[in-house]
């Protein structure tokens, strides 16, 4: 019973050791010349820490959400495409229904003006 789990434990040990080993190795190897901008986390050039009241347009969020939605759609399309022959007409019909629902959403989003920037 227990031996089945041995690979998992090895995996855990390696996974745990990896960051420690690399960090220590890097520390030993790299030259050190820190300055402020270099120490900042990388975030598309935006200052990562700033006033929480700073605002930027809500449309970023809308675009992000829409992206996630239609991204998931593709995730569903992919396995269907792989098993297309086995699923046959039934699968096609189901996928049409699924897409139809999304298209209704798409039309709705479009008409609501959510796709227009300002």
């Amino acid at each position, binding site marked *: 019973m227990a031996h089945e789990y041995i690979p998992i434990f090895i995996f855990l040990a390696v996974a745990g050791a990896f960051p420690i080993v690399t960090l220590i190795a890097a520390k030993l190897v790299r030259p050190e010349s820190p300055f402020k901008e270099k120490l900042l986390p990388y975030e598309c050039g935006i200052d990562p820490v700033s006033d929480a009241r700073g605002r930027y347009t809500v449309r970023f969020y809308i675009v992000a959400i829409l992206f996630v939605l239609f991204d998931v759609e593709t995730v569903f399309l992919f396995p269907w495409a792989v098993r297309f022959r086995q699923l046959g*007409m*039934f699968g096609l*019909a189901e996928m049409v229904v699924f897409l139809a*629902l999304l298209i*209704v959403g798409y039309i*709705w989003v479009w*008409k609501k003006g959510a796709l227009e920037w300002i």
Partner: protein
Amino acid sequence: MNGGFSEFFNRNDYFLITPAVLLALFGCGILLIDFLHDTRQKFMNALTALVGLSFVAYQLIRIQNQMDAVQMPELAGLNNSLLVDHFAIFFMLVCVAATFISVLISVRYMEIEHENHGEYYALMLFSLLGMYFMITGMDLVTLFIGLETMALSGYVLAGFLRGDKRSNEGAMKYFLLGAFSSGLLAFGFSLLYGISGSTNLQTIAQALGQRSSGDPLASLALLTTVTGLLFKVAAVPFHQWAPDAYEGAPTSITGFLSTGPKAAAFAFLMRILLVGLAPMRDSGWKPMLIAVAIVTMTVGNLAAVTQNNTKRLFAYSSISHVGYILLGLVAGNETGLKGIAVYILVYAFMNLGAFTVLVALRHGNVIGDEIEDLSGLFFRNPGAAVMMLIFLLSLAGIPPMAGFLGKYFIFLSLIETGHTGLAAFAVLYVAVSLYYYMRMTVMMFMREPVEREPLTLSPGIRIALGLTLAGTVIIGLYPEPIIQLATSAILR
């Protein structure tokens, strides 16, 4: 509906999901048709929703007739992930009725709020769609997806008044705690799946039956699942979201949330506890429910006494009603389950009736959710005040109103199963509840009105009042058909 498709699904499967298909079609339809109406024609959306709901009700009755015609107590579909029986039809019809009335009372209210968008009605239909799968589901995945569909629509509806801080706050709390409880529930479901290797409730019940009673994994699964469920029905100590969500939501939605989704959540709870977790009743969830029911009645009733906001008051009153309904599950015999069915049905009528009157108070700058807003209602609109009185008496459980009937069955079931102490405890809270309902009565009948002009009722509200009043009074005076309906819904 045949030929190439029958490899996976059969006719029966499609037949059983027609109510859900109808709801989806009408919901999407409203979303699209909404663009064709100008602002003054928005009531057409409500009309479309009402037509859709009527079709759904008709379809449910057709399914019931089909069941009777083939003399089957239940129809299973979609590889046993769906089970439609009299129980499901009964609860679904309650939900449809609650949604129907909520739509009726929304039209004028949302016009005054300038939020009369088509999405509002579409979301109500989508929520009902979720309820259908919550009620009929026999499979953890179906149940969970149904629950989330209902809940997500509910979060948006609760926050529909975008300009209102309280609405935003309430919706946010509702969402966060709802998501948290869904997480707990999903965790419990995953454990149940781990124990049984199946997502089917009946298979889970068999697997649980073979385990010893003190099994830690099964206990953990029970604990997380039941906690998640109790969050959904807003039982103490998992109730904190309810008062804020109820207060912030548009009044019509508060009425909707406290009836339709609640009925569905109870059907869901009963399915899981009485089918899936049935083997763990005596040592597992029954003691939990006793404790929860006691604190729920205590907190709900006592907290309601001090409220000055009617919507919060009704939130706490609805929490206390949950306590009574849970007692029916504690008893767990035929009378108790019948009691739950009757209770939920009459609660939908009387509570929505009360909310209809509150909605009618909305005009100009008056939101109508402070207890003072009711003052002198009798002088401004005697009919509305008398109806409100009837709803309040019914909520308190004074015969011959319908509310008494639900309590009657619950108390009887407790006595039948020997929980006399619990019954004595529960009946005493009836007096407490009467106190806070009567506070509103004092406002309506014994205070001078703040504003003199008579209160007019919109046609939607008139119809809604008529329906809820008929439900409250006729069921109270002649409950025989309803009792028989509930009996047939319970005996499986």
